[in-house]
């Protein structure tokens, strides 16, 4: 019983790719068979964030055009059990793929994997339509900013029109101190507008920038606050009932210590 998730947002720069990488790695750590599909053809990033750029030989376009077999294009991430990446092509653009081809590709991947995570490009054009074509479920990533929430709302509308079952919200880059001061939208403000189920809240974390640059998803870092949030989200995706983490930094530090002791 495999599930195809599309990770999407509408607006660019809210953390789709980073979230995809972390969720993929996190699910792999839970011993699921996972493949990450980069649908951002022409602007591929997922391989960079995963630190797998130098291992690309074939890409998604090669598979679709029949230049190689599916297995040949899949890059296995050696750091995790059963995590694979299907990279996007950098020299083509979004029009090189049709939604039907994407759908077929997803169906082929279903046979091999438990979780297929598709990293959707920003925007609502061809690339978006390709990315959602084969998906059963959607994770809508947004940051607590008016513009990002507005775009997320639009995306949810489009997902509903495409009959993708109940999209889930991943609220990224929350700065709890700003929320406390009333300078940033709180989760409640966002859900009031978007009215969808919450998959998780990820705190703003400088560590993310570092881990992204290094090509090591922070989900594996037990000391990382954001990593903890992603680990919780992964467990929720597998059907576990995990309460939303408390983002309060004081309690957060405490939790961090607790984590260290648990190790």
């Amino acid at each position: 019983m495999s599930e195809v998730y599309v990770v999407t947002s509408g607006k660019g720069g809210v953390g789709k790719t980073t979230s995809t990488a972390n969720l993929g790695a996190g699910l792999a750590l839970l011993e699921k068979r996972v493949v990450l599909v980069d649908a951002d053809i022409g602007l591929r990033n997922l391989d960079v964030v995963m630190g797998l750029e130098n291992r690309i030989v074939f890409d998604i376009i090669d598979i679709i055009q029949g230049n190689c077999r599916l297995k040949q294009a899949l890059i296995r991430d050696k750091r995790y059990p059963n995590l694979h990446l299907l990279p996007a092509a950098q020299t083509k653009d979004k029009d090189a793929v049709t939604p039907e081809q994407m759908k077929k590709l997803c169906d082929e991947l279903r046979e091999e994997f438990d979780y297929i995570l598709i990293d959707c490009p920003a925007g609502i054009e061809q690339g978006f339509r390709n990315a959602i074509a084969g998906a059963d479920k959607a994770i809508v990533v947004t940051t607590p900013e008016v513009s990002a929430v507005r775009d997320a709302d639009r995306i949810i509308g489009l997902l509903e029109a495409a009959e993708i079952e109940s999209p889930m919200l991943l609220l990224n880059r929350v700065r709890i101190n700003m929320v406390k001061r009333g300078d940033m939208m709180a989760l409640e403000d966002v859900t009031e507008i978007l009215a969808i189920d919450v998959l998780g809240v990820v705190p703003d974390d400088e560590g993310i920038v570092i881990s992204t640059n290094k090509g090591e998803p922070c989900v594996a870092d037990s000391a990382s606050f954001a990593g903890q949030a992603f680990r919780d989200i992964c467990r929720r995706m597998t059907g576990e009932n995990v309460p939303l983490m408390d983002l309060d930094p004081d309690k957060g530090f405490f939790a961090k210590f607790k984590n260290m002791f648990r190790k």
Partner: protein
Amino acid sequence: MATKQIVTIKGQNGVLGIVLDPKADFEDIKESLRKKTSQGRDFFNTDMKIMFKGRELDEYSEKVLIDIITEETDREIIFVQDEGYAAPPRVQRTQEQAPEPEPPTSPSRLKYRETATAYYHTGLRSGQSVKHKGSVVVIGDANPGSEIVADGNVIVLGALKGMAHAGAAGDSSCFVSALTLQPTQLRIAKTISYVPAPAGERAGSKKAGASADKAAENPHKPAYAYIKEGQVFVMPL
């Protein structure tokens, strides 16, 4: 059918004048209108404003004739105009048809036909737009970035935070009502306005410091917006 035409159709100023023989039997008129409209299908290439002339029609027979037109042409009738409204007599005189009583300065009045109200049982999200010839009722929120355009009234059973246009075809007696009336923009007929947001809050968002004095904010009450003397007024319900 008789050699004399019982039904003549002519367009002027974007209004289709449908001239009916005052003496003919109503059944014949129906028959003739059906023929005319089905022949002239291509002529009815857009949604129409129409005007019946030459004959007094009661509500029922008017509806029967309109139904015939919509059936035969697959087009919507936007308005049924009262005779004498916005119809320059000179143009009419050049046509050859039946006697047309023309009081040129009768008060302009558009008769809005409240035929159908569209109900939307899901809220509207950004980028979604609803257009309807009648009134629109949305059960749920209309989020920022959404659009409701109705020739009739707009009622939102939820928070209205997008754009709402009531009386889009010009009827300024239409209104907009919502449980929370916070549209980004509010239009009634040709008047455009916006409902001033409570201090520190923008439609669908929180500005800096908004949460701090949350308690001091007014709870959003159901409200009703209408036009009076060319201005939009908002009244709490």
